[in-house]
């Protein structure tokens, strides 16, 4: 395939690296990148999935009458972030904490849709969540095997360097506030004779 054909392939979906050996050439890859860049897209490689993907290189300008084929709203992004936390951030953090830098539970990164629904209980209904997950699967962010959700090729290219740090801050903040909630409840129970058995 020449660079033009490669671009067309990539623009409609991810492709296994083995099926496009042309992209292992620096020259071809640079040409594909250049062409995609001119169209506002970029080339990315998902190491976990061993697939090449093309994706938009930046946010979409807002146009009133624009009808994008896929538009991720706040709810879809929230579900996407939750999946990313479980399927990408958590394994990376485990590896980061391991002495040898290797995730001891590597390969065990899957998320039960029922578990995900439980985490969004009260905010997203089961059917709504199923629709959102389907949309994320169509985009390539998620795949589903044996009933379990796994990282799709696009999720592997999703994070930027600041996102992991942002997630760590969020996690630390959540853990601290959860601890304080627990402490406040304990102290209130200690000071309230009616709260003890």
């Amino acid at each position, binding site marked *: 395939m020449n660079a033009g054909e490669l671009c067309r392939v990539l623009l409609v979906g991810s492709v296994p690296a083995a099926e496009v050996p042309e992209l292992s050439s620096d020259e071809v890859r640079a040409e594909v990148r250049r062409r995609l860049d001119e169209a506002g897209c970029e080339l990315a490689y998902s190491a976990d999935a061993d697939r090449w993907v093309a994706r938009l290189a930046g946010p979409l300008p807002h146009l009133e009458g624009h009808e994008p084929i896929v538009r991720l709203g706040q709810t879809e992004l929230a579900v996407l972030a939750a999946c990313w936390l479980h399927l990408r951030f958590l394994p990376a953090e485990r590896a980061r904490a391991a002495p040898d830098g290797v995730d001891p539970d590597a390969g065990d990164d899957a998320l039960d849709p029922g578990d995900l629904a439980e985490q969004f209980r009260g905010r997203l209904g089961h059917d709504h969540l199923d629709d959102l997950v389907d949309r994320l699967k169509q985009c390539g962010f998620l795949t589903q095997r044996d009933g379990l959700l796994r990282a799709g090729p696009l999720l592997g290219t999703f994070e930027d360097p600041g996102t992991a740090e942002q997630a760590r801050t969020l*996690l630390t903040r959540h853990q601290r*506030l959860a601890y304080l909630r627990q402490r406040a409840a304990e102290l209130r129970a200690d000071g309230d004779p009616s709260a003890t058995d």
Partner: protein
Amino acid sequence: MAVEAWLDPSGRPADSPGPADLAVGVDESWPPAVVEPEAATPLPAVDRVLPLLGRFATLIGPDQERVKLTVLCALARQPAAGWRLPDAQEAVPWLEPQSTARVVEELSGAGLLLPAATDAGAWRLSDEAHVVAAVCSALSAPQLDQERLVRVLAATVTLARAVGAPDEAAFGPFLAAAGVLERDLDAIERRIAEGREEALLEAAATARAHAADMAALLQQHAELLTGSGGLGDAWERAVAALGRLETLTDDVVATLSGKADDRVRRGPRSDRSAMRGLVAASGLATLAALAGEARLPPAVGPTHLGTALAALDEHLARPGPQPVPVPEPAALPVEPPEDIPDFTTLAAQALEWLAGRGEAVLSEWVVGGSWAEATGRMAAVVEAWSRHGPGGDGTLRAELDASPVLDAVGHDEVAAVSRTLVRQPAGGELTP
């Protein structure tokens, strides 16, 4: 009535002669005429403390109390030995001199100004006036700093005791201070629940200041508050609230500054449980912000109308569904009737065979093969029992005993079966 007749520094009755310098048209300058913009005078500050000073209303009087208080505070800074009216007028340059004279007259009439003992024609403040002026000045801060609230209440407890007020006068401020601590606890818990870290730290800082002042109050006035006629229960609640507030504020500061991380996370920093908790506790907007601008895949695959039309043409060109021809007639084998076993007779024989074993469960014969076969055999048993059992011709040499118990089977497409025992009838004999 001539002014000099009643403004006498010697404390004579109001109709007695007084200093001549007050005799200049004071009646014409009432209400007081302020000669400068009010914002440039101390009057607005006094306005803020007037409600607190309502208790002095009987001393000050209901008319023009703001001006009287302001003048009184200014006069409190005059030489203690005594001062004259021009000194007073100079001390309040923002007030028209005749108005100052009238205010001095009113204050004298209320007993707040007395003749100076050492200087005839001069005035001094009475002891009560000094207290009023001191309290007014002390409370003239532009606004009450929230952090100082308990300290101020504690000071009023001290003040009440200093002036020899009844003990009850100190109880009110103490209970109010205890209430401040309770509100601090509520505020901190509310901010923890809301997850507002900055506001939480601010609330903790204010609460810490309140707690320190409350600790000092409790220590300083322990004897009064816990003695007979004191507030034992309220004291204990205040001590408990103080301990809880100190612990919680310490926890808040240590936790949010990261000094308590070993207590916050007993397990690994990141595990599946931590992720679940994070997702469950975070708002959709917070999570969405984490995802940011997700880089979407560009588009769907190319589709040309010509290709679509060709596909449609190919689809339409497919042969339509044809009816399947009827199979050729074929002669079916006919078996003589005697070769077809009577299933009911077979069931009756099976029941007698089971009964011959002494006692057996019916499912041993019924279950086997498929579900359809099992139900067929069960139907045959029912039919055999009807025809040949006690209700039929009575020839069946077996007795059935059904009980409301389910036996698990788990094979041959049968999960469970109700228990029916097959026995030899009482007194019956088996035919060899």
